């Protein structure tokens, strides 16, 4: 097991390293130098040269990359082009908003999806099961930003049940949670369907197993069989999926943050893209990619712990 974890972690590090290098290379090798993009086409050559020097862009690429990595090792992601503040600090300030949104979305999705999947498995082929199946597929398919826009349009603008913009007063937890409802719903709705399907499939599998039959033969009430014996096992694969969900939701959060004008990494990145603020783009993509790789790693390790067969096959599928 230890060997597997070490090998899998090294692979994750290699992938992250390659991804960052690739991103770095792309930003610096693509036509059009960042300085003229930032300063506009009419900027004087002296001004461009000064900015290039300030951002270290006049150095050879390997040296720049070396500098970037040595900075990264010390938690330094460079300086914001416009405000001169450290990018690491800016990203660190925005991260809690995105994490809160992602956790609320995935938590809500699990709270709705697990019972829904469980009920559809128990009442297989019932009307509820069929409706859940159609809804699950629909929730998964519809783009989250369309859901976000419709929620904003109806629940916030038309009926005014929920606030339309922002993350709430800082310090007022109730207000912050209130502001979290719609974005989390938009982000998590697809996952409700996904989790419901997962739980249903694994419940159906578990209910056929011997220990459930034994429990039934002992005359245990159906309710306690489902809750204590079946669901407990059936939920395990979903836990892994939740890990993966956190990673991919970090990027999905971008739309929810923009539609509901919430602070967060996604909005930070979007604004940095719009203003061509390269160091901030680099920093925020790096942090989200890091989270993504990390959550995949954790999910793989949990999977391997649960299913020893995976340890020999090299992990990631």
């Amino acid at each position, binding site marked *: 097991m230890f060997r597997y974890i070490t090998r899998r972690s090294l692979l994750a590090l290699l*992938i992250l390293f390659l991804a960052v290098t690739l991103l770095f290379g792309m930003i610096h090798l693509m036509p059009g130098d960042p300085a003229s993009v930032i300063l506009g086409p009419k900027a004087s050559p002296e001004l461009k040269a000064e900015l290039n020097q300030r951002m270290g862009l006049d150095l050879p690429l390997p040296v720049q990359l070396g500098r970037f990595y040595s900075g990264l090792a010390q938690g330094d992601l460079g300086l914001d082009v416009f405000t001169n503040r450290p990018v690491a600090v800016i990203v660190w300030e925005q991260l809690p908003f995105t994490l809160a949104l992602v956790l609320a979305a995935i938590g809500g999705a699990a709270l709705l999806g697990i019972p829904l999947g469980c009920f559809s498995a128990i009442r297989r082929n019932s009307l509820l099961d069929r409706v859940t199946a159609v809804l699950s597929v629909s929730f998964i*398919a519809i783009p989250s*930003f*369309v859901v976000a826009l*419709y929620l904003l349009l109806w629940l916030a603008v038309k009926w005014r049940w929920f606030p339309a913009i922002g993350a709430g007063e800082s310090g007022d937890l109730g207000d912050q949670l209130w502001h979290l409802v719609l974005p989390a719903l938009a982000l998590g709705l697809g996952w409700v369907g996904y989790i419901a399907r997962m739980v249903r*499939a694994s419940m159906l599998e578990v209910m056929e197993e011997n220990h459930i039959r034994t429990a039934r033969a002992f005359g245990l009430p159906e309710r306690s069989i489902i809750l204590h014996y079946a669901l407990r096992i059936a939920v395990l694969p979903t836990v892994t999926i939740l890990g993966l969900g956190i990673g991919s939701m*970090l990027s999905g959060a971008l739309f929810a943050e923009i539609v509901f004008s919430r602070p967060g990494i996604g909005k930070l990145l979007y604004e940095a*893209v719009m203003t061509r603020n390269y160091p901030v*783009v680099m920093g925020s993509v790096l942090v989200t990619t890091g989270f*993504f790789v990390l959550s995949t790693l954790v999910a793989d390790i949990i999977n391997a712990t649960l299913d020893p067969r995976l340890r020999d096959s090299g992990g990631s599928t």
Partner: protein
Amino acid sequence: MNSAPGFFSETFGKLRSDPLGICGLVIVVMVLLSAIFASYLSPYDPLEVDVYDRLASPSWQHWLGTDQLGRDILSRVLHGGRIALKVSLVAISISLAAGLVLGMVAGFGPRWLDRILVVCFDTMRSFPTIMFALAIVVLTGPSLNTVIGIIIITSIPTYARIVRTQTQAVRDRDYILAERAMGASTARILRHHVLPNIAAPLLILASMDVPAVVGMEAGLSFLGLGVNPPTPSWGAILNDGYSYLRNSPWPIIAGGIPLILVTLGFTFLGESLRDIFDPKLRGKGGDSG
């Protein structure tokens, strides 16, 4: 080998017993037709500005209302379908072809090459797609080709991974060994034995990818990073609607409905086809994220 008409009628026969599959098929056909005949179906020029009739609600003149420049939303929605389908068709076919080649090379080639390719695939997949897209757009500027390029780059690893797994599964079968013993070339084995085995699941996967690609194009255009104005794209209609949300809800309602229809149509059809061709996959759920 099935003859093509027999194959289609058999598939359609099975599809008929699945109401959701039929529903998906009807939606997909309707969307395809409306996109192909957009020029004939549109009551107005999608780019025609009418400043006296801005942000109008639906009426007999404008069935879905008008946007902030007085352009007819129905005409824009119909023409937007062309953009969405063009992007999906081009992006999915190129990434499918490239993924097929790379996946077969990884699955059938030497082990060292396989390892290198797998690390490359995993590296590409480790970027959260939308973040990667934003990083590319910041460099190249928004355009339809950029969107297509981004979708191709981010989809190839997924296809290649699946082709690789399937190729490996076929590679060690006895009949392939026999074929090899008879002196068949790798190219022949790949073309005659591996390709037919992986074609059906791959095509179903591709059809189920359409919603994700359409959503991606619309998402990027919604952010103002996809098609350039005034090109009508569903994402761009939503973007316009978002800016004038408090003045008129119609652009958002009208821009969102085709997106929902297309994603549902292709998903229902894809799920149904998958159940017909590969019942083993049933209940395992699609690839989300």
